[in-house]
């Protein structure tokens, strides 16, 4: 079953095109990340899916329903989705327990308030006013309010933006527990590590267009070649290595850093040299191409916007 469908979505604000012909689908139970730099159209896309913005052109459906449909049907649909907005959106005068109980009362089959508070790990702060919580704790309250109705689809708009690394990891843990339970999640982020950690699938947006739609591994494979790194033993100079390797030594750091198109041949040359010279290979590492490299390659040096989006789209996924 398809949980989210986006077909040729275009969104304009006056003369400015924020989203230009974006299409993708998210099957039920999948975690998809919209990844892209600031201004790529991530938030605009997610706001159309949440029903806050009307598309200028194209069709979007969430759980088979147009998010802009109002009335009683709209209420029933809203009870099936959850969302965490880009910035914290909480009444700071309420305590954590008051906010969670208030929102629980809106849904037909909510989770228990105590259950949610435990899930967002704020049991010891249940009686604390939200205004007195740290940024990371407030974000967890945001998430708690987003999931209390047992949503089938959860939208997370930059859920960890501005958080310190520890708070980010804590929030990831909560999201991962949701994912394990089968909730469909669409999250926007500009943190590559976040997409890699949470998502089954990464949709890269740049300048309002989809430039890649693939699994993290598929994307990473496009990041170029693996790199052989080796810190030279003391007393060894670059010129002591075979010429094919020596030009990749950084003399200042005394380190070989070789982007390898033929890993077997290059490693063979290095190991052969080490055997002949009885050099210690401790510290030798081969790093795979990174998602970051792929992401940077995809989001920089884009062709002119006037070209049809289809020509630039690279689709590896289903």
């Amino acid at each position, binding site marked *: 079953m398809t949980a989210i469908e986006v077909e040729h979505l275009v969104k304009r604000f006056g003369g400015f095109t924020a989203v230009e012909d974006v299409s993708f689908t998210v099957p039920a139970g999948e975690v998809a990340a919209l990844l892209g730099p600031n201004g790529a159209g991530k938030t605009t896309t997610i706001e159309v899916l949440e029903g806050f913005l009307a598309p200028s052109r194209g069709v979007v459906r969430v759980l088979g329903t147009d998010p802009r449909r109002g009335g009683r049907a709209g209420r029933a649909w809203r009870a099936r*989705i959850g969302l965490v907005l880009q910035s914290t959106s909480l009444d700071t005068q309420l305590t954590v327990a008051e906010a969670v109980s208030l929102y629980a*009362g809106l849904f*037909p089959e909510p989770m228990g308030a105590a259950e949610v508070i435990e899930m967002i790990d704020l049991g010891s702060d249940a009686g604390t006013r939200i205004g007195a919580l740290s940024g990371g704790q407030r974000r967890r309250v945001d998430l708690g309010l987003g999931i209390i109705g047992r949503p*089938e689809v959860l939208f997370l708009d930059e859920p960890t933006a501005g958080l310190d690394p520890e708070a980010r990891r804590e929030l990831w843990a909560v999201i991962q527990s949701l994912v*394990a339970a089968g909730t469909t999640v669409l999250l926007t982020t500009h943190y590559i590590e976040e997409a890699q950690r949470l998502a089954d699938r990464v949709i890269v947006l740049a300048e309002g267009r989809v430039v890649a739609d693939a699994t993290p591994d598929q994307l990473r494979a496009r990041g170029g070649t693996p790199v052989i790194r080796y810190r030279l033993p003391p007393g060894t100079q670059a010129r002591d290595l075979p010429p094919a390797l020596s030009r990749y030594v950084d003399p200042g750091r005394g380190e070989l850093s070789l982007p390898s198109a033929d890993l077997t041949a290059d490693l063979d040359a290095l190991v052969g040299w080490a055997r002949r010279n009885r050099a210690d290979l401790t510290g030798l590492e081969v790093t795979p191409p990174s998602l970051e490299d792929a992401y940077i390659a995809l989001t920089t040096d884009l062709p002119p916007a006037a070209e049809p989006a289809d020509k630039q789209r690279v689709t590896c996924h289903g």
Partner: protein
Amino acid sequence: MAETFSPASSARARPAAPPLPGAGPLLGAQVRYQLLLLMRNPRALILSLAIPVLLLVLNSSRHTNLTPRLEEALVAGLATFGLIVTAYISHAIGLVTGRQDGVLRRWRATPLPTWCFFAGKIAATSLMALASVAIAIAAGMSLYRVHLTAGSALSLLVIFTLGALAWAALGTAVTPLVPTAQAAGPVLLLTYLPVILFSGGLGSLNSEPGWLATLARYLPAQPIIDAATRALRQAGGGPQIPGHDLAVLAAWAVAGVVASVWFFRWDPVRPRHARLP
């Protein structure tokens, strides 16, 4: 942790989806929630409850030889002032702040019916405004020669309730004109201070021109002050509800609701989109 969560898809596999919560419990929860916000907002409490009493105390030390008729008008005027500060200023600032902080947007994304959100907020605001009025009249009774009968109390309840609803509806309608919480003070003061001044809420105007007196009768402050003054002067008998004053307030309430339905904005003001060259 993970094993405790399950999305509602399993529940939806049943023959009928579970019904959404009914309007009664939703509205009750909204009124409680909005009252809690007001009670925990020191600025709103001082504006609503303390300032009208303070003005009554200051006036009592300034005027030592007011006639009873002027005293009743003064108490009615300052009680109305407190009501408007609560129902218009605090209410509108609360909405603009909620809009700016994204709280309104979050509410809009929930299954709560829109009318229920506004009804809850306006009802809580009106209750707070009536509390402000009660405190101001109690202070007036202890500081001035103002008395209440059962009939006059009922008249006051009707007129102040309708007044609070009208001003809360207008406070909701004015929020699209206020871009940010920081801009709320000037916009709201500019819209309500002339009305309350022309209506004699801060002391009667002895030499106002005729056209201004006529205009004030149709603005939403003077009908409250006039009706409340008459109620405070009421010696006995049942409640006396003046038709003109009620009609004017009801018209403003309807105008406020209609304008809110058409123009209310849930989202913060967006910065203008533009590509850098």
